[in-house]
């Protein structure tokens, strides 16, 4: 579709030399001076456009070319093609010194182009005003009244009083057509019936009159107009009221109340716009003969409800009338999924006004939060609009709509399906969904978001498969694919849990690992990989929010979930690593918030840190856990910390370290980094400094480690720097532990270490301690390495 040829054309346009450019300008100038505009002129102007638009830096056209182009633009005799070209070129060369184009004579087409160029010139208020003035003069020659009221009046005429006869066709009839058959026939509805009431955008005719075109244009812009000008200085409309002297087309049908004629223009516009929307809603019940008209009906519904919403916000007296209409509409549409997009403005309307009208809105929200996300998650537009609705209204939804808070399993479905498009919406939406009672379940749901994607995919494929392929399988059959598992009774419950609509049936399921295994054949599907890439971001958002309000109980629960799920994840490439990375950093945050959790969860932590297999599968996370133990397992953080606990941890970690540093003759290259070793050494030393009976044991171990580091087998495992690092660390720790009180100070500083006293008091300050330690270490540096 786009080729090297076009590519080189752009390049030429950008890199054209000055000399060639001037020659070209001269040629254009000459052509435009001539009377006849032929193909060569068109061609030149097209190339001129490409030259000015291809670069992002503006080019200054010579003065005479600019003048000629402006002449071309403003003359009503110019062909449309040339007007379009000159308009396009002038737009691209802004800023240029446009003469006052609005003074020129011209027809509406010219003024339209002039307006375009003026608006493109940037926000020069005077020029814009004068063009606007010119435009409005076209609408009505006399100009004494306020411009806004003028437009409002005109809009009323066009919306409500357009004719309902078809326009006379330009080329009407042939030789045999008698004048009688050229009678204008009435406008019809979209289903072919004769128009029942005033003209709207859903009225069909062979050709349209001018005011019918204006009707269509007026409705197209009414929403924006109402938003901009409805409440703007509404005081000045009623005095010089010309609205009674309308002279506009009389309405054929549907008598309007005379009292409405006495309303100021803005209020009258509101009234007429309301009637228009009412009619559109009725008209959309008809079955359109053409598919494009059926789509238009839906768009009209959305617009009509939205405009009614705006009108009701401006003037609450409309609410009762509006509700009668909207409620009936909801009743008509609620069962039909094809009209789901119209449900969103209806729900917004209920959200905004149901309190005023004391109308029960439970059913609407139930439909919205249960059916739409679970059955239509794969529609990109609807998913986006639904998410927008949730995001924009989240405060109100959280406070007054009961079902919202517990619908998050459903709310995650559009995200799971289409993560790249919706991730930024959910990053904003997620924090408002998290509360103390839902946090744990949300965490589990987020961790299994890729599983949800897989399950949704299987569900869709299953729904579109042959009925014979949907029959439940016999329990004794062994499944060979995730599709089969979906039909198998053993796995069915798990799928149903993942695909659930509402929260509250349990934070997670027992046999999650089984589910992960059976979904393994889908782990490299692009959609699931995309979801897996966005999940860590959401986890980060989750923890940031949870940290704001979590109490001790919740923090403990979160840590347990972290420990448990660090190995219980859907096996997608990189997914485990990224999630564990989030876990590592968040574990430290949680420890900082509530250091006692180490003591409170000591059993689980001991089990975790004692399992050597954890080092291989999640080394980074393991290292962080060990660090946290070393840092926070002390009496200064929790009075309940006992010597037995410290000793128990010590022994567990010692055993692990012993195991991983076994130098076996047939040793294979270890799969863990030296950082694990140094971290374990440091943590053991920290624990020992708190329970000084352990110092001899750890010192012994440390000296063993020094010999370990120097052994020939190890030198083939690690690089020289790493070995040196291990050795240095072991030496430092040994030396440090020779002075237990200093060791305690360095390895387990009390929490007051952050207070200023530590730095100002000359007896306790850190610089003093540092000096003491460095002297100690220097003194012992003559100690020969083992």
């Amino acid at each position, binding site marked *: 579709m786009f080729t090297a040829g076009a590519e080189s054309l752009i390049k030429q346009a950008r890199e054209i030399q000055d000399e060639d450019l001037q020659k070209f300008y001269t040629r254009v100038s000459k052509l435009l001076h001539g009377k006849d505009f032929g193909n060569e002129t068109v061609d030149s102007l097209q190339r001129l456009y490409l030259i000015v638009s291809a670069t992002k830096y503006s080019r200054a056209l010579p003065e005479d070319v600019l003048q000629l182009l402006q002449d071309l633009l403003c003359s009503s005799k110019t062909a449309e093609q040339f007007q*379009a070209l000159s308009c396009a070129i002038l737009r691209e060369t802004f800023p240029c010194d446009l003469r006052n184009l609005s003074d020129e004579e011209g027809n509406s087409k010219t003024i339209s182009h002039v307006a375009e160029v003026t608006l493109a010139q940037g926000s020069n208020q005077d020029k814009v005003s004068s063009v606007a003035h010119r435009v409005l003069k076209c609408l009505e020659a006399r100009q004494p009244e306020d411009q806004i009221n003028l437009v409002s009046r005109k809009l009323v005429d066009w919306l409500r009083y357009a004719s309902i006869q078809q326009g006379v066709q330009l080329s009407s009839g042939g030789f045999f057509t008698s004048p009688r058959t050229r009678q204008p026939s009435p406008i019809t509805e979209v289903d072919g019936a004769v128009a029942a009431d005033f003209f709207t955008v859903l009225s069909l005719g062979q050709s349209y009159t001018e005011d019918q075109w204006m009707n269509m244009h007026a409705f197209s812009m009414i929403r924006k107009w109402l938003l901009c000008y409805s409440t703007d200085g509404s005081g000045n409309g009623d005095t010089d009221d010309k609205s009674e002297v309308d002279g506009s087309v009389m309405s054929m049908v549907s008598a309007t109340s005379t009292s409405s004629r006495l309303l100021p223009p803005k209020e009258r516009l509101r009234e007429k716009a309301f009637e228009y929307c009412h009619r559109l809603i009725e008209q959309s019940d008809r079955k359109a003969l053409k598919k*494009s008209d059926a789509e*238009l009906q839906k768009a009209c519904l959305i617009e009509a409800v939205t405009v009614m919403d705006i009108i009701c916000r401006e003037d609450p007296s409309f609410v009762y009338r509006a509700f009668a209409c909207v409620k009936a509409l909801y009743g008509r549409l609620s069962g039909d999924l094809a009209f789901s997009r119209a449900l969103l403005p209806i729900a917004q309307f209920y959200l905004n006004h149901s309190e005023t009208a004391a109308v029960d809105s439970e059913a609407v929200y139930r439909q919205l939060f249960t059916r739409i996300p679970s059955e239509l998650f794969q529609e990109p537009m609807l998913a986006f609009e639904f998410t927008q609705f949730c995001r924009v209204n989240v405060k109100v939804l959280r406070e007054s709509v009961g079902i919202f808070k517990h619908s998050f399993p459903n709310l995650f479905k559009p995200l799971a399906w289409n993560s*790249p498009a919706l991730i930024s919406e959910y990053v904003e939406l997620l924090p408002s969904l998290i509360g103390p009672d839902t946090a744990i379940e949300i965490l589990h749901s987020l961790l299994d978001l890729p599983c949800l994607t897989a399950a949704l995919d299987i569900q869709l494929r299953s729904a579109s498969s042959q009925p014979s392929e949907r029959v439940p399988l016999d329990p004794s059959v062994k499944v060979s694919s995730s599709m089969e598992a979906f039909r198998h009774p053993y796995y069915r419950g798990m799928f149903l849990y993942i695909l659930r609509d509402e929260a509250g049936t349990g934070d997670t399921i027992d046999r999650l690992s089984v589910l992960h295994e059976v979904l393994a054949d889908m782990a490299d599907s692009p959609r699931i990989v995309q979801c897996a890439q966005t999940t860590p971001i959401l986890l980060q958002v989750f923890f940031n929010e949870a940290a704001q309000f979590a109490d001790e109980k919740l923090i403990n629960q979160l840590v347990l979930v972290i420990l448990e799920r660090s190995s219980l994840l859907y096996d997608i490439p990189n997914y485990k690593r990224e999630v564990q990375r989030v876990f590592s950093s968040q574990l430290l945050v949680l420890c900082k918030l509530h250091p006692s959790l180490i003591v409170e969860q000591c059993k689980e932590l001991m089990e975790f840190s004692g399992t050597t297999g954890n080092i291989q599968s999640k080394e980074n996370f393991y290292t962080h856990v060990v660090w946290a133990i070393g840092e926070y397992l002390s009496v200064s953080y929790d009075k309940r910390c006992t010597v037995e606990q410290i000793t128990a941890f010590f022994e567990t970690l010692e055993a692990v370290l012993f195991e991983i540093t076994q130098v076996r003759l047939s040793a294979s290259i270890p799969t863990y980094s030296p950082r694990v070793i140094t971290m374990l050494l440091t943590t053991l030393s920290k624990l020992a400094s708190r329970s000084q009976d352990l110092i001899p044991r750890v010192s012994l171990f440390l000296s063993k480690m020094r010999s370990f580091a120097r052994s020939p087998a190890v030198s083939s495992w690690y690089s020289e720097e790493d070995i040196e690092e291990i050795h240095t660390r072991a030496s430092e720790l040994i030396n440090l532990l020779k002075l237990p009180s200093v060791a305690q100070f360095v390895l387990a500083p009390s929490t007051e270490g952050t207070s200023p006293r530590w730095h100002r008091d000359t007896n306790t300050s850190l610089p003093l301690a540092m000096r003491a330690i460095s002297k100690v270490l220097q003194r012992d540096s003559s100690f020969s390495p083992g």
Partner: protein
Amino acid sequence: MVHGFLIHTLCPVSAGSSSVCRVLYTRFFCSETLVPLPAGLDAGAERLLQKEQMMVVARQVKSACTLSREAAGKPPPESCLPPLDEVVAVQEADCGVFRLGAGEPFQVEKTVLWLGVLSLGFSLVCEPHENLLLAEGTLRTLARHCLEHLHLLGPPGTDVLLKVDRTEVLLDRLLPHGQLLFANHRFIHSLEKEIAACMAK
């Protein structure tokens, strides 16, 4: 109201050049009140800003479309057979929407609606609470006409770059001054007749 319309490439251009996202046509409808740029900037700065903003949109649409096609498991467009006609091409096109927050890159929040037809993208930059159903319909109609009148489906040409008057005429009728139109099939028919008459000249 629509803030802008653009046509741009989606895939790496075959025949050697890098996978730069090439913007082929942009049109602003200038519906936002621009905050005056800091004083002391060159007069062409506003235009430069607009061009850069459209580049950002085009790049984002390109990645959104690529990800969407990947997720749906569609083969790359180069390996596909060309579609039979414009109507089919637009029906089978990938479609999507995303939001641009304030400052990224426009001053206020915008919604971008895109259509990916083989290796060309058509995008509308809309206001946040636009009638997306109408915008989608309009975008599809616009894309269909662009494909037809700029000969984008046949052997590769340079019409999209040079025949800007045609694009202007299309936009002038179907999206006048950025206004989305609630046009039923009869209105569209009249507009299409006018378009055909203009193109024939």
